[in-house]
């Protein structure tokens, strides 16, 4: 390039503090059209705050924002949209009860006679937008009927329909299968060709290196490094993010496999589970891989008594058991850390103490009264053992980072000393440092004799943590691989059926 390009977005000395935290501190950063900038950092590093400033969601304390060389102020999300700045949030910002077209044009519906909505034009325009991007979704479909991946693509169509010049994507692939991820990447790259400036936020470094032209690393509110992607190695980026060396992404303590604890024989439930048999042994971590929708979560829920079994048997320590409810499973010593932390795992508005102690309360009650001292003592021990970073036990769980929330859920189970722990996507949306800690904890628990079943969509995680790997496809287990024989390719081949 010979000409010196004017950056699409130029941030100068941006500062933002919240009570007690300097969330963003002296950040200056350029984002160019025709480029993908990956913004990486641990949770709490300030990425989200920075993006919220650019999108007019939170006001900045000081600093300047230039768009195509012009000084702008962005006091509201509406203003950001008018300027062509859009953000695709990690938690999808679509209204499930409305149709695709209604969502895309929400707040700027085409009018007829000044008062009515021109539905015909709205749906025609929405469909054109979808078709142009090659998104195979009807504009009249209701969002609730779409898959997560389809919703993500609709979000992008919505963003683009604002004539976006700058799009920020926050963890867009966290719930996509690898095939859906490919579709998304194609779309992102074609947007780059069209000249859009893209900011891509992700914890998955493989994606960052696959997509990004430039990488910016944030830590503790500061921008600690920025440069062309080719100037970095993944190890370097991790070091910059956490500010310390991580010996290995997935430290693995080889476990001694003990006697079998939980055995499932030919489990069946609806279309999702069509005959699954598996066995978990003391001391081992079994990875359950497969595409989203292959039935992994359903198997986990069956083993936990959360869904009704339509066929098959579950054996626990040598005798057959009938799990009619999660209570039955918990009584036996089976725990589940669910996939959807916020909806199924946490009492978000309650304290760390309440969340970590919730499982203990019944066990530690005497004559119907909760023995708070005993609960407190155990919760304090667990919080220390798992190194949950919280100012105090009365902190609301929703104010913790994703990694610490996950640790609180695990702490709740550990208080019950389970024999079997099932973890469904335990590190989704969790930053690198906390992820390594959760993995280390899993290894430690296995070494103490717990049987662990881990569901994950991240192949490096599956490969790094598991002693044995099961692969599911269309409701069945289609492959069993030992730690030694497993590779990303073999798992993917089994999961997609391309043998």
């Amino acid at each position, binding site marked *: 390039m010979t000409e010196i390009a004017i950056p699409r977005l130029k941030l100068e000395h941006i500062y933002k503090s919240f009570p007690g935290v300097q969330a963003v501190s002296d950040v200056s950063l350029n984002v160019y059209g025709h480029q993908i900038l990956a913004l990486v950092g641990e949770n709490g590093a300030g990425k989200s705050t920075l993006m919220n400033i650019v999108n007019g*969601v939170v006001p900045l304390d000081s600093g300047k924002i230039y768009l195509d060389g012009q000084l702008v102020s962005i006091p*509201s*999300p*509406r203003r950001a*949209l008018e300027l062509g700045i859009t953000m695709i949030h990690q938690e999808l*910002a*679509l*209204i*499930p*009860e*409305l149709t695709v077209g*209604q969502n895309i044009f*929400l*707040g*700027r*519906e085409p*009018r007829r006679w000044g*008062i*009515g*909505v021109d*539905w015909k034009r709205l749906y025609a325009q929405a469909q054109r937008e979808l078709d142009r991007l090659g998104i195979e979704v009807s504009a009249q479909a209701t969002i609730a*009927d779409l*898959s*997560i991946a389809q919703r993500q693509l609709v979000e992008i169509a919505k963003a683009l329909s604002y004539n976006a010049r700058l799009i920020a994507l926050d963890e867009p692939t966290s*719930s996509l299968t690898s095939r859906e991820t490919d579709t998304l990447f194609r779309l992102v790259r074609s947007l780059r060709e069209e000249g859009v400036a893209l900011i891509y936020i992700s914890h998955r470094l493989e994606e960052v290196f696959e997509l990004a032209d430039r990488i910016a690393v944030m830590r503790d509110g500061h921008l600690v490094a920025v440069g062309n992607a080719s100037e970095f190695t993944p190890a370097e980026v991790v070091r910059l993010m956490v500010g310390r060396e991580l010996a290995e992404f997935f430290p693995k303590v080889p476990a001694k496999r003990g006697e079998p604890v939980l055995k499932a024989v030919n489990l069946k439930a*609806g*279309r*999702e589970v069509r005959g699954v048999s598996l066995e978990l042994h003391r001391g081992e971590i079994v990875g359950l891989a497969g595409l*989203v*929708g*292959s*039935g*992994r*979560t*359903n198997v986990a829920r069956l083993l936990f008594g959360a869904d009704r079994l339509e066929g098959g048997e579950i054996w626990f320590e040598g005798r057959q058991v009938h799990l009619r409810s999660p209570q039955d499973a918990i009584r036996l010593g089976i725990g589940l850390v669910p*996939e*959807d932390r916020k909806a199924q795992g946490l009492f978000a508005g309650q304290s760390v103490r309440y969340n970590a102690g919730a499982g203990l309360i019944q066990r530690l009650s005497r004559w119907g009264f909760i023995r708070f001292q005993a609960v407190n003592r155990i919760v304090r021990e667990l919080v220390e053992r798992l190194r949950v970073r919280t100012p105090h036990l009365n902190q609301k769980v929703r104010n913790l980072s994703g990694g610490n929330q996950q640790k609180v859920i695990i702490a709740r189970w550990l208080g019950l000393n389970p024999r079997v722990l099932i973890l*469904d996507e335990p590190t989704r949306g969790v930053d690198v440092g906390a992820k390594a800690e959760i993995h280390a904890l899993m290894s430690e628990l296995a070494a103490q004799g717990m049987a662990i079943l881990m569901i994950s969509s991240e192949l490096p995680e599956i490969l790094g943590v598991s002693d044995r790997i099961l692969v599911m496809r269309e409701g069945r287990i289609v492959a069993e691989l030992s730690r030694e024989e497993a590779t990303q390719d073999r798992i993917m081949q089994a999961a997609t059926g391309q043998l």
Partner: protein
Amino acid sequence: MLNGNHSSSFISFLRRTSTYLILLVILVWFALLSPEFLTVGNLLTIALQTSLVALVAIGMTLTIITGGIDLSVGSVAALSGALAAGLATRGGLGTYPGLLIGLLTGLGMGFLNGAMIVWGRIPPFVATLASMAIARGLTLVYTQGRPIAGLDKTFTFWGGQGALGIPVPVWVLIVVAFLAYFLLKHTPLGLHIYAVGGGEETTRLAGVNVGLVKFSVYLISGLCAALSGLILTARLWSAQPNIGVGLELDAIAAAVLGGTSLAGGVGGIPGTLAGAFIIGVLSNGLNLLEMPSYNQQVVKGMVFILAVMLDYFIKQRQAKPKGNPAD
């Protein structure tokens, strides 16, 4: 489980029409049990009796779709009726200024609700519970707890017989229902009412003035309550300070029977009308069968539970084949 697409489309048909089917079943049932039931005169009586609840239920539906609720409607109806009657008669303002002030009273209470909810950030349940007490109290203060009689013909016209032999309140209901339907289905405000109930933050981020949307629904609900109060006053030939007690519960029941979700984001006017008519037909039919009114309450409560359970059952049947969207 039933098999194939055939049954799931049948279930989705049931899902969309369950309220109307229940109404139909009840109609047929009473028609078989009582010969007087299916006469033009009786059907008009049902329509007249239902119009009061239905008017309030229309406003209520809008507030519930946004994820809110309006508990003040019964008291607002009483206050509007009392002020209108009082000012028209002993206040000496005349009927039309009195009626106008009655409607403005409804808007005023709607404004109070909106202000508490939007500016004061008070949860709708609590805010409208408070205004329910305030409006009832003001009514009792103004009337000294006694009826206000002496309404002239222009006032009582609104409770009487109208064109084509159809009572005026029913005409009012038809007009209001049509306007509300158009508002919900064909205007940006209507779309935004659904959007706020489906996801308030998302709607705000899309650049919609969420506060204005909420204000609108409470204003409309107040207006609907006032209309209902004025019509009831006209029908009774006097303002009674204790009218509309429990009206909010009938209105909520009508909306919920009609498929409006208390969680917000879902609902509509046709369903609410059907819901209101289920309540109206039940009262009428049970009266014709000479069931004592105390017993009627028990039956109504049980029908309500059955209808909601049926709706829930159908919803589950329909949702199940889709499985867990996340995996």
